[in-house]
């Protein structure tokens, strides 16, 4: 990363530290959701394995997506508050501001994910993953964070107001609910099932689940990585183009 990106990242860190409510929010909501599904609703689902083992990979992805709304808002308020114009007329690298947002967003997500995994263990989560599978799982989580963060940065840049930036991110937050995160796809009704099967979060969650249960599936992993690459590329190009256009 360039020196400009590091300087900008330091700025984003300070923002995160000064706004603990956002981090708290990003950590708390997924945990509440996890407790609700595992304790209250999950017992009603028959997924073939212990529900906490089934739900944890989905909850990790939900935590990533939920944390993105804060990123979209931060990016948008940067654009609308004028500081960006100062950066634009300075001789600094164009991507630095965006790189820093992506990295800061990832770090918040990773904190939330660490919390989720901690809570999962407390609830009886017993993954069968070997050390290399854990590494692969963490790698996949990071890739998902990078991809969704770039898309979020683009959405935040494209939105006219912080409110519409918040709205633009809603589909990304809802998508994991319509995937295999909470119940297996084959238990869903027709229509929803097809949608769930072919949307990006199902292969991502299945790949993660495979790694954590020690039964990795090459097909899911390839599909997951392909989706992430696509999302990251679209997000990156869109973000850069929007950033250059908006004065």
């Amino acid at each position, binding site marked *: 990363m360039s020196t400009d990106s590091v*300087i900008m990242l330091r*700025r984003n860190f300070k923002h995160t530290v000064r*706004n603990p409510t956002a981090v708290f929010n990003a950590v708390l909501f997924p945990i509440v959701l996890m407790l609700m599904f595992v304790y209250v609703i999950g017992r009603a689902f028959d997924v073939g394995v212990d529900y906490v083992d089934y739900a944890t990979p989905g909850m990790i992805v939900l935590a990533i997506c939920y944390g993105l709304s804060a990123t979209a808002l931060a990016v948008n308020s940067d654009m609308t*508050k*004028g500081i*960006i*114009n*100062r*950066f634009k*007329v300075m001789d600094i690298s164009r991507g630095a501001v965006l790189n820093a947002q992506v990295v800061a967003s990832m770090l918040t997500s990773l904190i939330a994910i660490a919390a989720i995994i901690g809570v999962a263990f407390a609830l009886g989560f017993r993954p069968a993953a070997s050390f290399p599978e854990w590494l692969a799982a963490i790698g996949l989580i990071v890739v998902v964070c990078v991809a969704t963060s770039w898309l979020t940065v683009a959405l935040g840049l494209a939105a006219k107001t912080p409110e519409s930036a918040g709205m633009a991110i809603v589909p990304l937050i809802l998508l994991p609910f319509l995937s295999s995160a909470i119940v297996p796809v084959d238990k869903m009704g027709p229509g929803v099932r097809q949608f769930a099967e072919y949307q990006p979060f199902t292969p991502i969650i299945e790949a993660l689940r495979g790694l954590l249960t020690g039964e990795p599936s090459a097909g899911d992993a390839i599909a997951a990585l392909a989706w992430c690459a696509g999302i990251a590329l679209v997000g990156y190009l869109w973000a850069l183009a929007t950033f250059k256009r908006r004065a």
Partner: protein
Amino acid sequence: MLDGIDLDVPAGTVFSLLGPNGAGKTTTVNVLTTLMKADAGTVRVAGHDVAAETKAVRAVIGVTGQFAAVDELLTGRENLQLMADLKRLESGEGRRVVAELLERFDLTESAQKLVSTYSGGMRRKLDLAMTLVGDPQIIFLDEPTTGLDPRSRRIMWDIIRQLVADGVTIFLTTQYLEEADRLADRIAVLDQGHLVAQGTPSDLKRQAPGSHVQLRFTDVAELDAAARVLAGSTRDDADLTLRVPSDGGVKSLRALLNELDEHSIDVEEFSVHTPDLDDVFLALTGHANTEVIAQ
């Protein structure tokens, strides 16, 4: 939106672009500061072509826009330090520059506070201080005093004068005629995307209708009498006023008053008008600068 703008700003001077809201001032600044590309024509800033040598232009300019470009979640000191880091000032040098600017802009006491707690005037000062980090040769100030109270405005003017004294070139846009008159070496008047005049403040004032004396009367009879006596005057029957050309000097005023006295004409109200930039604006554009009259 802009059409046929041809400006030439000598180094080390203050150039003011004057015009009402929507005249195209900010657009002009955006083109000059590489934020927008012009459809046609060439723009050179500090000798560098804005389109071809964007980086070189960015390295020598500083811009303070209409809305304070500060980071509200950082403190005043951190905002300045951020600029010092981005300008790659060596760390000791950076700290020195930051402390100096805080001192100069009277922000030392609030340096550790988050900018979100700053008043409008403090934000503007911090904004300008951030622009000065790295000693830019040319500073663009887009309506630097819009929305400031009179005291903050005066402080801002003093700061701008100090910058010029240090050899910086300033490109200032404003909708306040008084501001351009006080600060600028040269003024260009922009109206609806067109340049309508360019010159020194006194050049422009010369283009306005000359100074005059305005007399107001209580009834038409007095107005008639005065109009007969004073040659070259123009009357306004609705207002019962008479406009008499005059250089505004004591001698000619005394002569005028004596003349009125001799003919026993009663004057209700008497005022001397020297042309200001309001008159210039009116004369040049054919419509009043409503913004300025309103404030």
